[in-house]
């Protein structure tokens, strides 16, 4: 990981993403920090904590921890992260105020497998919120603010009210769906337009963190609904955490036209656990066409094989099988002076240009 602390008047955005998992660490100036999403490299502390420790930042300087949504790859280790950050306000989608969604989370009180799931992690978090500050994210909700220079503010700009309303039916369906089967289904996924998109302003710099927001079509959902709402921003964003691993389902032209400056820094985390990993070659072409300042946390994914007994290994080879561990320890880090607003970029391999 990259070393060195930012200056007090510097804003920093660090993105980690090893192929499965995503975490954003933001310096809001004056040694105030925010963490968005979490993953845990095998057997190690959450990556965000490891990074902060590596650059000499105490965990009690973290002021805000945001779970953008409950997907496994965005939330693993977050309960431990919160435990380590006693001064952090926890924030998640206002969708979890819905009693039915809480009931759905409670229904999963027993993990279905030893691999755990995002629902398990979220349930642990919700049960440990006693005595901690927390906020519910929705369009136009101010999550954190600092007035002294450099002034800084964090807004959530989703889920929008309409997305929330439309998703309520989906939430009700989750329990019905379970009741109609004889064997237990794994937790279904909620629509991605219930996830939390953040707008971060520090001094003159603006950052748009897109989580896994998608564009399902229609003006009242997804990115279209976000773009159409009354803006909390007074100028466009310099940095864009590209949503949904660069997929075309997360793309919306209006975001690039209306919310982002020309040729913004576009940051992408890959996703390898599907038959066609993201971003696809076509996704890369599309993003590079929109900006030359496009970066990925993993230009390549390291593949390792765990050593096993000779007999097992021979059998696997003859069967044409080979379980592999896929990982990438890359980091993209952007910094800018809050007043000057000119961004510099560093990468730790295998992060690099998209």
């Amino acid at each position, binding site marked *: 990981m990259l070393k060195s602390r930012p200056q007090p008047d510097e804003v920093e955005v660090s993105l980690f993403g090893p192929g*499965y998992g995503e975490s954003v660490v933001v310096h809001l100036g004056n040694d105030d920090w925010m963490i968005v999403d979490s993953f845990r490299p*095998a*057997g*190690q502390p959450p990556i965000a904590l490891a990074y902060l420790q590596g650059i000499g930042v105490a965990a009690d300087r973290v002021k805000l921890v945001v779970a953008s949504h409950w997907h496994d790859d965005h939330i693993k280790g977050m309960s431990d992260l919160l435990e380590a950050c006693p001064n952090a306000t926890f924030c998640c989608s206002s969708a979890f*105020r819905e*009693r039915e969604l*809480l*009931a*759905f*989370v*409670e*229904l999963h*009180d027993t993990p*279905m*497998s*030893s*691999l755990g799931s995002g629902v398990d992690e979220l349930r642990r978090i*919700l*049960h440990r*919120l*006693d005595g901690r500050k*927390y906020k519910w994210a929705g369009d136009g909700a101010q999550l954190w603010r600092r007035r002294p220079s450099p002034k800084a503010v964090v807004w959530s700009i989703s889920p929008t009210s309409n997305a929330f309303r439309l998703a309520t039916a989906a939430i009700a369906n989750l*329990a019905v769906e*379970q*009741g109609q*089967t*004889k*064997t*237990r*289904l*794994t*937790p279904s996924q909620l629509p991605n337009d219930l996830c939390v998109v953040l707008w971060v302003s520090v001094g003159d710099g603006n950052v748009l963190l897109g989580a896994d927001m998608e564009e399902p079509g229609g003006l009242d959902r997804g990115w279209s609904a976000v773009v159409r709402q009354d803006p909390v921003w007074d100028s466009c964003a310099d940095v864009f955490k590209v949503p949904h691993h660069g997929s075309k389902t997360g793309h919306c032209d209006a975001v690039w036209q209306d919310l982002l400056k020309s040729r913004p820094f576009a940051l992408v985390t890959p996703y*390898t*656990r*599907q*038959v066609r990993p993201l971003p696809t070659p076509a996704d890369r072409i599309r993003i590079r066409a929109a900006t030359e300042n496009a970066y990925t946390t993993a230009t390549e994914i390291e593949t390792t094989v*765990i050593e*096993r*007994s000779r*007999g*097992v290994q*021979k*059998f*696997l080879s003859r*069967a044409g*099988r*080979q*379980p*592999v*561990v*896929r*990982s990438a320890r890359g980091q993209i880090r952007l910094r800018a002076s809050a007043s000057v607003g000119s961004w510099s970029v560093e990468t730790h391999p295998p992060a690099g240009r998209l």
Partner: protein
Amino acid sequence: MSDTAVDVLRFSEESRSSEKGSAWLSAENEAFTLVSARPARTAEAAPIAGSSPTQSLAADEVPSVRGVWKADLRFPRRLPVTVPLQEWEGVVDWVEGDEFGATLADMTRPDAHELEQDTFSMEEVRRDDEELVKPGAAFYWTIALVTSDVGQRSYASFIRFRRLPAWRTQDVREARERASELARRLNLA
């Protein structure tokens, strides 16, 4: 008398009270074909060292000493054996056509934290489990060394999808109650 002894005797008494002996084949049971019947255990049949009510019945067997000493030890009796060598628990990530991809946790090394990934063919799945292969489904995958009773050795792969019980109305009701309590603690309306 120890609590354990009390449990054994009580269990044996209950068994005796339900013992029917040959009367099992009574008219009321004519719908069933009796292949074999094992009479209920009685206190008299308790093995030498006493027994536990929760032990497996196979453990009651006390082999004939005559059988051991008279065996021709030039040709030791062997039984087919399947020895698990490597076990994973997996979760399906994607399904496409006749393949599925999964993330695997190594159960043979519980202290290992790395998760592995591999691609499987539907041909490797039991027919009973085919309908269970969906994203998010959990399964066990074991590689074992199989030795037949004539000593033929081979490696075999066993994939079994987990059947976890569906939630019942009671589970949903209790979840809603816990959700209400959680909402109260979180000051939700």
